[in-house]
């Protein structure tokens, strides 16, 4: 269901007064809750609820060959499926560009943050490495799947453990469904995605469905902390309208400021979930 012009105008009028339909401030996120271990058969899994938006992420590990240009690194593959269960907008069938974009935005933020120690995912150089499949499924789309999906991904990765291995005729084999207590080789870094939207001249975070459908422009900034300093690891400009340089400066500053806030809430909720 497309948002009506009237709703759009009301959203704009409200934003001009610094207000949103649900009374949040422009940079306030909706309530966040995290649940981990939603599938006993996954190496790691998590459910994130951001307001009414619900998204699941799971980690499955398998063994494979490394890429020839990085013979001593594990492999990360991120997939998302915009299941038609989550919204009347999504259709069954092969992944649409929205689904591919979402996976790639999350992939880059996770990869570039350095949260994985990929070399420790190598079992035998040039021959055998861990293949990490990170799969993300929205269950209810009430806006902002990027930020919510990113948090679900990080929560699932943080929780994931390695499966048990068995040697058979000198070849390693995974004992499916049996897990060790050994966590994935991760660093301290916790990347998060902050997706800004623009309606009129107003820039804000964490849109609802109505706000998202009224949005004229979108940009995602992915940040992580390295030695107490925050860095941008990935950016994706979406939406239709371009941003002015001044607007971009405003967004960059707001991203750093709100990353700290969001990280605090995320860490608190993740701790509760464990």
């Amino acid at each position, binding site marked *: 269901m497309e948002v009506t012009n009237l709703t759009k105008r009301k959203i704009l009028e409200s934003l001009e007064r610094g207000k949103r339909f649900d009374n949040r401030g422009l940079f306030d996120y909706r309530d966040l809750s995290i649940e981990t271990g*939603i*599938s*006993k*058969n*996954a*190496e790691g*899994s998590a459910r994130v609820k951001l307001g*009414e938006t*619900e998204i*699941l992420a*799971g*980690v*499955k590990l*398998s063994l494979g060959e490394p890429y020839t240009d990085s013979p001593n690194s594990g492999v990360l593959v991120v*997939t998302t*499926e915009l*299941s*038609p*269960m*989550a*919204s*009347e907008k999504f259709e*069954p069938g*092969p992944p649409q560009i929205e689904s591919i974009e979402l996976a790639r935005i999350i992939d880059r933020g996770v990869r570039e943050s350095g949260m994985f120690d990929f070399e420790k995912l190598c079992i035998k150089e040039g021959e055998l490495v861990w293949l990490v*499949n990170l*799969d993300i*499924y929205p*269950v*209810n*789309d*009430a806006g902002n799947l990027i930020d919510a999906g990113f948090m679900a991904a990080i929560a699932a990765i943080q929780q994931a453990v390695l499966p048990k291995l068995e040697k058979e005729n000198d070849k390693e084999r995974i004992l*499916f*469904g049996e897990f060790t207590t050994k966590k994935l080789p991760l660093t301290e870094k916790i990347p998060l995605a902050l997706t800004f939207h623009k309606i009129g001249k107003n820039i804000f975070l964490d849109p609802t*469905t109505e706000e998202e459908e009224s949005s004229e422009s979108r940009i995602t900034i992915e940040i992580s902390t390295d030695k107490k300093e925050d860095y941008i690891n990935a950016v994706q400009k979406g939406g239709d309208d371009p941003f002015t340089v001044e607007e971009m400066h405003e967004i960059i500053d707001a991203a750093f400021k709100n990353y700290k806030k969001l990280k605090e809430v995320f860490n608190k909720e993740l701790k509760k979930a464990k």
Partner: protein
Amino acid sequence: MVYTKRFDGRKFDEMRQIESKVGVIPRADGSAYFAFGDTKAIAAVYGPRPLHPVFLQNPEKGIIRVYYDMLSFSVTERKRPGPARRSSEISYVTKKALEPVVNLSSFPNTVTDIFINVLQANASTRCAGINAASMALAHAGIPMTDLVGSVSVGHVGGSIATDVIKEEEDYEENGEKMVTDIATAFTLRSNKLALLQLDGKVTADELKAAIAAAKKACSRIYEIQKKTLKEGEWK
């Protein structure tokens, strides 16, 4: 009869702990969650809504479509995302199980889509999916003449076991598979079989006994579904 004590200590006619809930997906027109122990499924219903392309429309009544799938991490060995032959067939038999109870004659040319996703699997996923879908349809306010309840019954090592788990599905004696897994669904008020699938080896009497066990379990599921729809949740 060799299998005399079940792996998880249940009685032979006892189902696993059931958990069910409606309204789990606010954006959908109707939704439900249903779990047999560790087997967990959710279902969302969208519709009746316009059906495209137009040549698929039925001018006499609305049609339903079912999409069953498993999350890649719901099983021990990752399931490749996207449809496969197994999920296509399950979608098809699920549709056949639900169709007899929905009445969409007032909604010609429309489609009602039912999406089922398995979150965590430990056998009987199609049954959990049908139970969730039946409730999701009612929750969406789709005109229905009945509810559908589904359960799997196994003929395991000579015994009839209701609501089988993975370990029972894999039960062997002397290296030989000794299990026939029988998936059933009943229309619950009229007590008719709307799904029956099996593979294995059973006698006529064993199959009849399995159907009786399934019917008994489904009448329990009916009570749970009704309670869930009235109260929103059942545990």
